[in-house]
């Protein structure tokens, strides 16, 4: 047990884990474009569901190894952070002492976010025609009322609006979707991907449920705070020394 904890606490472990990730990601970056058709649905489905359906382990092995190693990295990060908090040294410069640990905790939250997204996420793209009602999930439906497109001076689509009616089995809400302006109804998020303002008005709408996004965001915020804290700590230390 002691040996295992020492293994997780070692900087060498972190270094070799990082190196292994680099190798695996490199393999993945060659495998993805080499098997485009095979990987075509990976971004449309939560990862774990996609992996269980895809079956072909000879192509996806690097993802499995990476998931296993992420678990080891998470444990290593957790132990190193706990040790840093328990250690009595370094507290004379608390910002420099705490910032890397805040970053570590941020990374852990990002991993948790990815884990939740990969296991419990939900994604669906719906091509809605004007006046058509489509079922989202259960008794929740979406109806496309109208599409408005704004062109720029050169005639390109500068902005658009898809006017929709969301019905969650009793409550009816009118809403409009624009690029970068998603709408959230309970656990579901609606995103406008594209619209067509031709003879037949259509809107491509993405419906998502991402239980990991907020955790990942929290992790990102902590990573940023830790990073900025570390830089400012270094800056003030350098200024004092100067």
């Amino acid at each position: 047990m002691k040996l295992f904890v020492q293994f997780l606490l070692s900087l060498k472990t972190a270094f070799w884990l990082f190196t292994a990730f680099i190798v695996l990601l490199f393999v993945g970056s060659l495998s993805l474009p080499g098997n485009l058709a095979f990987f075509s649905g990976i971004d449309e489905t939560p990862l774990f569901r996609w992996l269980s359906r895809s079956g072909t382990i000879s192509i996806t092995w690097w993802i499995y190894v990476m998931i296993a190693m992420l678990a080891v990295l998470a444990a290593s990060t957790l132990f190193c952070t706990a040790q840093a908090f328990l250690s009595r040294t370094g507290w004379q410069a608390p910002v420099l002492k705490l910032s890397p640990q805040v970053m570590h905790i941020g990374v852990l939250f990002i991993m948790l976010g990815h884990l939740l997204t990969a296991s419990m996420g939900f994604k669906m793209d719906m091509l809605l025609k004007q006046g058509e009602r489509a079922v989202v999930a259960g008794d929740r439906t979406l109806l496309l009322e109208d599409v408005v497109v704004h062109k720029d001076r050169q005639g390109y689509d500068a902005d658009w609006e898809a006017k929709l009616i969301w019905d969650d089995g009793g409550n009816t809400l009118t809403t409009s979707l624009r690029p970068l302006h998603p709408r959230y109804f309970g656990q579901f998020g609606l995103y406008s991907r594209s619209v067509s303002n031709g003879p037949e008005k259509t809107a491509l709408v993405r419906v998502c449920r991402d239980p990991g996004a907020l955790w990942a965001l929290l992790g990102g915020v902590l990573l940023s705070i830790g990073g900025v804290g570390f830089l400012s700590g270094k800056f003030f230390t350098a200024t004092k020394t100067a």
Partner: protein
Amino acid sequence: MFCSLPFGEETRSVITIVLLLIPATFYIMGLMEGRWGQGMFLAGLVSHAASMIQRGLEIGTVPLTEKHDNISFLAFSLALLYWYFSRKKSLQGLRDLALPLIAATLLTAFFFEPINTISPFLRTPWFYLHIFFYFISYAFFGISACIGLQYLFSGKNEHESLQYRGAVHGWIFFSLSLVVGSVWFFLAYGTYWLWTSRELWATIMWFYYGAYLHARYVKGLSGRPAAIMGLLGFPVALFAYFGVGTVLPSPPTQF
């Protein structure tokens, strides 16, 4: 505004090229000794800033939405960081490495035609911040690599320490870029991660510099081996930006 002036497309392209050639020439002339060299470098910075302002006026927004402008911004960031680091007496030799790198980076922008249309999915401060942090991080990685090269020749601990400091700044700005980019992508497309070569190489870069920052404290890796690792990080970063999509295929994002 520039875009309202009576210039045709071709004239505008010629002006854009000239406005890049002028600072690139000044940066190279910055290799001259003494005050003349410093003056030329500053003239390069001022004319470079002018060329970016011209592009901004031409497209009506911050010029950070496509490769031509991004590379120009990278060269500008490199120049600013070089200016900051070169004030240290021990880094006088940095000029011979950094100025050609800045000029070469700027001239690379010629290979990418300026694009004046902007997708509605890019019109958000989150995207601009993502790109801003991304190229600031690249500039830190570039300057850090130059200082690392200097360390390999000089063997001075101060150079190694400055190389590390540059890489730490780069890595933190790169992390910020990934966080802000994820927020932008989630608001635009409802997801914060994609399985494409581009994303995988961004992650490779993050782990690579993460490994370097840890390696510096690992017995047997600190010193020269870690410095070489830090130095090689810049080619990795360059491949992540220029190589993916050209040498290594990565399908364009269809989201």
